[in-house]
């Protein structure tokens, strides 16, 4: 059975970088797909990869990771203002992060507008933005 766990950013906002990474990685290690309503910093993303590598063993083969970052999207007029306000409120952590354990998630295909998640058991599941 496929389990998705939605994590609001507020749940990890008060944690240190290491704490955030640990929390997300621990959920993935329980064979659950993490949907974080927000995104890690670039430094935290690399630290997540490092921490993942340190944890790899015969049962845990790593993770698949995808981030949708609205900063990369082109916007104009009101869109720019909206993004600016959201940045102030959320501390530049807007976006969507998907972390899936490699034992469950075969591949995450991504283009700027959608994430396509291919699982090992279920053929296809789409998470559209």
């Amino acid at each position, binding site marked *: 059975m496929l389990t998705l766990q939605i994590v609001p950013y507020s749940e990890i906002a008060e944690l240190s970088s290491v704490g955030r990474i640990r929390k997300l990685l621990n959920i993935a290690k329980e064979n659950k797909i993490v949907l974080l309503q927000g995104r890690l910093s*670039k*430094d935290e*993303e*690399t630290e997540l*990869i*490092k921490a*993942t*590598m*340190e944890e*790899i063993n*015969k049962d845990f*083969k*790593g*993770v*698949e*990771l*995808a*981030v949708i970052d609205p900063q990369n999207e082109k916007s104009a007029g009101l869109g720019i203002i909206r993004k600016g306000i959201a940045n102030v409120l959320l501390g530049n952590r807007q976006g969507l992060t998907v972390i899936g354990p*490699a034992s469950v998630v075969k591949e*995450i*295909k*991504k*283009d*700027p507008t959608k994430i396509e998640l291919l699982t090992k058991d279920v053929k296809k599941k789409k998470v559209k933005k």
Partner: protein
Amino acid sequence: MKFFKNILKRFFQRVFKKRGNVKLGLYGPPNGGKTTLANRICQDWLGEDMGNVSNIAHETREIQIKEQITIKNNGNELSFNLVDTPGIATRIDYEEFIKSGMKEKAAKNRAKEATKGVIDSIKWLDDMDAVVVVLDATKDPYSQVNITIIGNLQARKIPVLLVANKMDLKKAKIKKVEAAFPQYDVIGISAKYGDHIDNFYKALFKLV
């Protein structure tokens, strides 16, 4: 005090760069052709290989350095230390090495070394003066590993050149790489056959 420290730091950086101690890193996902490109550079300018290449991912599992490579173009010279890094990945499964024909023990060992290699590659990011990110032009450029590597280099203000490798293959699409990373120069090459390698060397002068 901080002002004088900065001046001293810049002075030393300039002196070391003039001596050819610029560290040029080759980064990217596994099997993108980093070591093939490193071998191409070393063959062209030193007449020797740098490392082994393989169709099985994670062939390079340790940082490899070739010091004092000097390349020439239009009367200009550029010296650097070339750092070939293990491919960065978010998953490593020894069973995939077994599927590629390896024995279980060797596959497990390769996986263990590969995880250490990824950690070392990330640790070395801070030491680079400039980085060439080597991408397989036949693969999806939007993979999170590519985005994370490039985003990190950008955050660290390290100059980046993107190489769309394997352009000799029919499935290669440089336009897709360019569309994924519009803010960077992308040079299409075949490191294996040396196609358009002169364009790559010209771009290196601009980068470093």
